[in-house]
Structure formats: C-alpha cells, structure tokens
C-alpha cells in the first residue's frame, strides 16, 4: 500500500473536497468527513515519517509518464528537505477541523482541496507537476478568503491572488527557459529536478530566470519587500485559512527555493546570497518593528509570522549546513508555534468577536488552561530553549555568523525584537485587570484541550528531542551544501587561475 502513499495523500483530500463541494451534505457531516480524511492523512504522514530512512536520496518514489513528448512526468518523492514540510502539512489539518465548528460545507471542502494541493506541491519532483499543484493551491485559498473572510476581504483577496499569480507567471517563464536549456544541452526534454541539477547555466538569461524564480517564491514566503499582501490577507482571512497560509503555504515558498532553485542555479544563488540574506534580515526587523504598533491581535501575529519567515529564509541563504538544517527545522517549529497562535486567536474571536488588543484583558484569570497553552506557543515563537523554536533559531543564527558576522548579529536581534511585541501583547490581553469584554470568556473545553495537547507536547518534545528530526534532515542538507560549495569552489578556482598573483600577495 505504501508504494502509492504519496498519491493517496494527494488525491484522497482532493477527491473528498470535490465531492463535498458537489454533493449536498450537512455542515456537521462535512466537518466530520473532513476530520476523518485529515486524520487518515495524518496517520499516513506519521507512517512515512517513521519509515523514512534518511539516506539522502528520494524515498517513496512514484514515477509515471504524463506528457512524454515534453518529458513531463508524474513524479513524486520525499527526501530530507520535504519530509518536515510534509509532516507540517499533515499534522496540523485535523486541528482545524476539530476546533472550528461554525464554518459551512464549502469551507471544509476547500480546506481539503488546499491540503491535497499542498501535499502535491511538496511531494512533486517534477517542475511542471510542482507548478500545477502550486497553482491549484491558490484556488481554495482564494475562495476561503473571498467568501468566508472578514469585512475588507475582497481587496485583500484580490491583492493576494493577483500578487501570487503575477509571481507564478514569472516562474512559468523561467521554468520554460530551464526546460529549453536542458533540451539544448542534452538533446531531450526533461523537467525532473534530478536531471535539471546537471544543467550548467550561465549568462544574463540565467540570472534573469533565477531572479524570476526567486521573485515567485519570495512573494509566497513572503520575503521583504514582497510581503505587503500579507498583513491584509492574513487579517481578513478566516483564521483557519490564515493558519493554512502561515503554517504551510509560506513554508512551501521556502521549500521551493531549497528544492528547485538551489540545485539548478548554484552559481547565481551563491552570487546573490548576500543580497537575499540581507532581505531576509531586513524583513525580520521591519515586520518585527511593525508588529509592536499593531492594535489588532491577528494583524500583530501576521507581522510576527512575516518576521519569522524572514529568519527562516535567511537560513536558506547562508550556504552552510547548520543554517539550512535550522531553517528546515524551523519550518515545522514555526508552523506549530505561530500557526497554533493563529488558531488560538481564532478561538478568541469565536468567543468574544473581538481581536482588539486594548479592549481585552485578564483572560488568564478566566481561562488558565487557554492562557497556559497560549503562553507555551508564544514562548516557542520567541525561541525559548526547551521549546521547538530555540533549536531552529539557534542553528540559523549560528550559521549566519559563519556566513557573515554582521548579518549574524542582525539575525540575533530577533531574540529581542520578538520578545518585545509578544510580551507586551500578552500583558495587555491576558494580564492586568479583567475587562467587561472578557468576563464571559470560557476556558477550553475538553475536546479542545485534547486537540491542542498533542501540538503543545510536540512543541516541547521538539525542543528536547530535536535529534530525531534533525538526523532525517541532515544527509540531504549536507548533500545540498556540498553541491553548492563544489560549484562555488570551482568558480573560485577559475578566478585564481585568472589572477595567479593573488595567492602570493597573501603569503
């Protein structure tokens, strides 16, 4: 059965989602179906995670010809890079179904579609297949925000959709360029990423194509200054959609960079690494500073999420194995911390119909369990040791220091910036005098506690036993870094040959 595990994980939710959309089903039944499907996916995901051997190659491979004349294949596979993103995409969905009871059938259907498409994008090893899932992913999000969002949802939806589609079109163009270059160099068509990494590109066109790819992913991540769709989008989206966007979809942007950009454009990547890592750091600081001024809790978390994504992106551009592994680890750590914070805000919104920080207060006295869970997720998001957030942030900062002391120092400020806005928000919402608006706040029900306990345990467990995750990532990360450094070293060798006097001066 596990030969086709990935296909099942992709198409089970997609088919179920379509069925839900087409058939007349009651709201409760839709939610139940969604929950069951996502739990099934979760179990397959756990099985894949446990069965994954971590020997730096693709596992669970599926390979079928799709458009033979263009060498396009239906090719799936999982390696150390995609494993954790996949786990994040499987682990978090059941929570959405179990926590939010009030949505309609269409919403649950779209949620399932989104899950299937995301898993597809994560598992695809063929560029065209990836692109197809990448685009499908956007559709359910479009409907979820556009139909079920907040008051100003329409402008936010339009901005998000047009922005991302513009990026995707750039990627499509670059993708065609990559495909034709492969055809020119090897005389046959292929979009398989393993084949494409043999490609040696050069010249202005390669730089252009690289930048087009990067812009597409930077919009999705979102990397400063392409993040401007995010605050409105995250705020107006229904909380579960925000959760999907921040916990998983943003991660697929980072994943795309690691999976498709690094192997194909090694030279360009090394050349622009400083620029992009500066963008990552700038985004982290900029969004972190913006977060402190927010009055809406969800908007504050949106900026906080963008700020953390800056750090995760930075880890990818630092070109060493610690930072890369840190980024991959932080992908799931961030999904469990900030993602869960979004869910908590969603719960508060359902109970109080209010997200304004200043009008809240004293929730900790009404709802100690909720406050404790919130605090744990918050501490993970500010990177307290013993929680999942620390390992990732520490590895990224460590790697950034190796890359450049200056960037490393700036990256380190995330420790301070994050804690400032989080603590201030926590103080105003959970402590101080309780206000009328929060008097009726009910603590988590048993069902909700049962839903969140696994994630809270995961947050702490990942902080204490990260090695079981890291050991699966490491071989692939090593391989990636080795590939880059081999290429960049041959570049260095070329330049030293051109300037033979160079070495003598140093001695």
């Amino acid at each position, binding site marked *: 059965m596990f030969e086709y595990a990935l296909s099942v994980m992709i198409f089970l939710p997609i088919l179920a989602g379509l069925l839900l959309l087409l058939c007349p089903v009651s709201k409760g039944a839709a939610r139940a179906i969604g929950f069951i499907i996502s739990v099934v996916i979760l179990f397959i995901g756990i099985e894949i995670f446990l069965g994954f051997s971590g020997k730096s190659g693709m596992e669970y491979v599926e390979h079928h010809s799709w458009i033979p004349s263009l060498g396009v294949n239906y090719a799936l596979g999982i390696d150390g890079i995609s494993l954790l993103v996949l786990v994040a995409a499987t682990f978090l969905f059941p929570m959405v179904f179990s926590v939010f009871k009030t949505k309609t059938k269409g919403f649950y259907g779209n949620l399932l579609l989104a899950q299937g498409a995301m898993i597809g994008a994560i598992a695809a090893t063929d560029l065209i297949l990836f692109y197809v899932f990448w685009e499908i992913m956007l559709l359910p999000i479009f409907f979820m925000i556009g139909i079920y969002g907040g008051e100003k949802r329409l402008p936010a939806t339009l*901005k998000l959709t047009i*922005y991302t589609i513009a990026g995707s079109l750039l990627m499509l163009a670059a993708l065609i360029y990559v495909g034709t270059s492969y055809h020119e160099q090897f005389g046959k068509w292929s979009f398989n990423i393993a084949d494409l990494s043999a490609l040696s590109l050069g010249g202005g066109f390669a730089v252009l194509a690289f930048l087009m790819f990067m812009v597409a992913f930077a919009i999705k991540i979102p990397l*400063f*200054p392409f*993040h*401007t*769709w995010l605050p409105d989008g995250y705020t107006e989206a229904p909380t579960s959609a925000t959760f999907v966007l921040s916990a998983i979809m943003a991660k697929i942007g980072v994943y795309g960079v690691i999976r498709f950009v690094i192997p194909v454009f090694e030279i360009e990547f090394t050349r622009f690494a400083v620029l992009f890592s500066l963008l990552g750091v700038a985004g982290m600081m*900029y969004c972190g*500073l*913006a977060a*402190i*001024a*927010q009055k809406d809790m969800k908007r504050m978390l949106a*900026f906080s999420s963008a700020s953390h994504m800056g750090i995760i992106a930075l880890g990818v551009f630092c070109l*060493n*194995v*610690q930072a890369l*592994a*840190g980024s991959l680890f932080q992908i799931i750590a961030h999904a469990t911390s900030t993602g869960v914070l979004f869910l908590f805000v969603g719960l508060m919104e359902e109970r109080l119909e209010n997200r304004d920080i200043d009008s809240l207060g004293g929730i900790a006295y009404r709802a*100690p*369990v909720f406050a*404790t869970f919130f605090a744990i997720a918050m*501490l993970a998001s500010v990177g*307290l*040791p*013993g929680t999942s957030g620390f*390992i990732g942030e*520490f*590895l990224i*900062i*460590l790697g950034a*220091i*190796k890359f450049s*002391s200056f960037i*490393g*120092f700036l990256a*380190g*400020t995330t*420790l*301070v910036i994050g*804690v*400032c*806005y989080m*603590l*201030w928000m926590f*103080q105003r919402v*959970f*402590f*101080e*005098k309780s206000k009328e608006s929060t008097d009726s706040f009910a*603590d988590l029900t048993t069902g909700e506690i049962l839903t969140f306990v696994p994630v809270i345990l995961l947050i702490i467990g990942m902080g*204490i*036993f*990260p*090695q079981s995750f*890291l*050991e699966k990532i*490491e071989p692939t*990360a*090593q391989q990636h870094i080795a590939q880059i450094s081999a290429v960049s070293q041959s570049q260095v060798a070329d330049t030293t040959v051109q300037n033979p006097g160079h070495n003598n001066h140093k001695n």
Partner: protein
Amino acid sequence: MEHSANYLGLIPLLPLTGALVIGLLHMMTCTGKPLPEKLYSTLACIGPLLSFFMALVVFFHLRDMAPEDRFLSHIAFTWFAIGDLHVDMGFLADPLSALMLIFVSFIGSLIHIYSIGYMAGDENYGKFFAYLNLFLGSMLILVLGNGPVVMFVGWEGVGLCSYLLISFYTKDTDNVLAGNKAFIVNRIGDLGFVLGMSFLFWAIGSGGFDYLSLKENTHLLTPGIGFAVCLLLFVGACGKSAQIPLYVWLPDAMAGPTPVSALIHAATMVTAGVYMVARFSFIYAHVPAAGTIVAWVGILTALLSAIFGMFQKDIKKILAYSTVSQLGYMFAGVGLAAYSAGIFHVFTHAFFKALLFLGAGSVIYALHHQQDIWKMGGLKKKMPTTYATMLIGALALAGCPPFSGFFSKDEILFSALASGHPGIWFIGVTVAGMTAYYTFRMIFLVFHGKPRDQEAYDHAHEPPPVMTVPLIILAAGAAFAGVLNLPGIFGGHMSVSHWLAPSLVEHHPHASVWVELFAMLASIAAVVVGITIAYKKFSQGAEEPVFTGFAKFGYHKFYVDEIYNAVFVQPYKAIGSLISRIFEPNVTDIHVKLSTWIYKKCGKGFKVLQVGYVRVYAIYMVIGLSLMSFFLSQSIN
C-alpha cells in the same frame, strides 16, 4: 566509566517534575475550589530537598577523588548534532559547579520552606510553588550544564521564571511591566550570549562543544576572536547579573514576592553571570584585556548602585541596589582573574543577602506590606529574632570582620591591589564605606529609634517559626561561611580556593603580607567610618529628609530609567508605528501601488477609443480588416 554519574541528571529533573505536577494541579483547579495548601507545599519541598541531598552526594563523591581529576559527568542523550556541531544534553559536576550546586539547592530549599509561611493564604499559592520549582530546576541546569548551550537552557529558563515571578501579581500593570522589562533586558544580554557562543563555536567548537573539549582547544583561539567572544559573553552576563548598562531591571524586579527577591534576585540567578565568567575562565585567562574591561564595568556598577542605594526609601530597593553593587564586586574579582575570590563572594553573598531579604520579608509581613523605611522604626523589641539575624546579615554585607562578607570582599580588593589596579581597589574601598553606610541606615531606621507609624507598630509581631528558622540557619551561614576560605594571614588554608582550583584557570598574584594587611585595614576603616556616620544620623529617630541637589539626583537614580525610556523605548515604539502607519501602506507597497497605477493610466488612455457608438466600432473593424487584408496580400505576393 569512572567519571560517569547517572544521578546528575536527576538533580534538575526533580524540581522540574515538581513544577510540572504542581503546575498541572493548579491549572486544573484554580478556577474552582483550590486544593489544600499543605498538598502544594509538601510537593514543592520534596524536589529541592532531594536535590540538596544529591548535591551533597556529589560533593562527597568529588572529595574522594584526586584533586586534578575531580569531575563527574553524565550524558543523557544527544541533543542536536548537525555537521561539526555536536551538542549533548549532558551534565558536568566539577568543584566549581559542585560548590554552586550545594548552595543553590540549600538556599533554594530554605526559601521554599520560608515561602510556606510567607505565601500562606495567597490565591495563587500553587502557581507560586510551580514557578519556584521551575526556577530551581532551571538554575540547576544552568549550573550543571556541561557546555555553553545546555547552560543557555538554564540561563533562559531562569530568565523566564524571573519574568513569571516578578509579574506574579499580574493584576497590577506595574508589576507586569517590571516583569517585561526584566525579560527584555535579559534577552538583550542573551543576544550577546548567543552571538558569543556562535563565534566560539566557529573558532574552536568543532572538536566538541562542551567545556572540557573547549578547554583543550583554547590554544586555537586567535586573540581577536577571543576578545570578541569574551565581550559578547560578558554582555550576556551583564544582562543576567545586572551590570552597567543593563542593570535597570533588577531594582524594578522587587515587584515580585519577597522570597522571590531573596532567591532569584539576590542569591542565585543574578550570580549566574559571575558563574559564567568563571566557567569560561580558560577563555578569559587567554585574553586579559577583556578581563580588565569586565573588572572596570563591575567596579563602576558597584559605585553607581551604591550611590543610588544611599538615597532609597523602599527597603527592598535598598537591598536591590546593594545586590547590584555586590555583583559589581564579584565581576571586579573574576575580571581580574581572581575567579575563586569572585565565586567565594557569590557564595557568602548568597547567605547574607538571602538572609537580609527574608528578614525584610518578615518586616514587610509583620507591617502588612509596608515597605517604606521612613514609616518604620523601633521594631527591635517587637521582632527580636528578625532583628538579630538581620543585624548579622547587615554586618556581613557591610564587610565587618569576622563575618563572611569581610573575607570574600577583602579577597577581591586585595587581588585588585596586588594585580596592579589601584584605581579599582580605591573605588572598591570607597564603595565598601558607602555600603556600610546605607546598610546601617536601613537597620537603624527600621529597628532603632521610635516607631514612626504607631498603628502599624502595634500590630507588628514576630512571624511564625516556619519563617524564622530559615532566618536563623542563614544567619549562621552569613556569620561563619567566611571561615571556609580563611586566608593564611589568619592561619587558614584558603580551602574554597583550593577546592575550586582544578576548575579554574587562575594565577594568584603574589604580594607581601604588608600589602594584604594594608588592604584589610583600609577596608575596615572604610566600614567603620560608614557605620559611624549612619549611627550619628539615623540611630536616634531621624525624620524623612527632602532631597535636594545631588541627593535628589541620586534618589531619582540619575534619571537613567527616564533616559532609557526616551532613548530606546519610545523611539522603538515610534519606529513601530511609523512603519505600520506610513512605511507599510505607502513606501514598502510602492511596487504594487505603482503597477496598479500604471494599469489605471493605461486604461484611461485606451478609454478614449471606447466611445460607445456602434458605428465607431464598425470603423475600427473596417480599419482592422483592411489592414489585415493589405498585409495578407503583401505576404502572398
């Protein structure tokens, strides 16, 4: 293996388990009927007491080993390993950490017992003990960690507990703000720690990132990187141990319950910075210049906070500034490579400062949360035990022979003189005089003279034994702990220094006995002068003065908080709102705005053609068709 000791991991684990159990119990029941206090206090005291017991086992185990071979270690599991980086969740007990271990778990246990009485009747009784246990567990991890990263776990853990306990009475905004301030300032320090660790790793960490391996590889460290590492780590120490410029959080931290001030903000957590510098003595010894900076920052902090301490009126603030000041001494000691002197001062300070805080707690408890010393007076008769024990504590803090503070402080001042830093020595002696002055100002105003608030005085009474017994035990420690490190001049053997020697890279300055005697007499003279002035001014019931001039400046702590607020906090918020109001919608979004603008302009341009009359569209069609057929006919020919 000879050096492995599995039970090391249990030492921090016990209080942590206690914290988990108590925390869960409290969380589940706090909105309903609370559980009996006895249950919480029993659960809370088991962990610390067992840890103390095991600390003693560790101590005796180490004592039986050969001095140069004294260490125990336990690797619980590989925490994380990527590339060259290999971090174990491991614990190391050597003489240095064993000493810290003993006094941390001992004072921790005492304060747990004291809190049973002090916190009685509080609605968050369970929460308090959960936090206190969590703190002790983190502190023990900090002390026992076998490498910088594990130490950092405890380091941040104690910071978190400090935040939670400072803002313990969360209904008051000021308390929460004080907690936030502590956490954020500590985080600034932690930034230095993380950066320092990272540099250290890339320089010499690839052979193993624990103290023993790092110590072996120290010779690989270039002076430049070593200097940077030392300074960055010291930034971390500044944050945790409240040194210039990051000391501002500690006085505000007194917002927490008094046992917390005693345990966290006087005896244990704030000395973590000193411990860290001593722990990295092998690196600091490598770059003496960095050590000198540490020493100067320390002694200047001592001076500054002694000045502040002379003008405060809140009994806990006075003690807080005295803590900052004593921490300054410790840094002066470890900065000048007199690590054992610094650590010994940490040790004695823990006793007398915990004693003073708990004594102050008794006074506050007796006077129903009155903390203003100008509203106290004459309590000597009402609270004899508290008075006697606090007097011992005050004498020890002032550095009066033969109490413990005298020996440890004198050791630091002597090494300043002997290692050729007369400036540091001179400031140190001055601060000793000032310390004696403000300590006895407090003692005289609280216990001597006539009561200033008769009603509060009438209700005052000695607290229950569960609170006084810890005071007496601590007083015994404060009085006699100095004997443990008696210098040769008094016929002692410097036992603590010898005990610590294998863990530290230390070079003792050699100076003549006359220099030692001179240093000692000078500090005794300073202390006598300080106490005399305090006696003259305050023993006979002085009235609260109105501060003017320099005194007012000192009372307002040189307006440092206000300056920080104006220079850092307000601009930070201003930048935040500037970004979210102006930059985000207008500047950063410019490329999106620009492209929509271009689209709109283009649309307006083409709009001219859309006149709405069918016949005009027909003209376009005709023109288009004619052009098409023209070009087609061209291409055919």
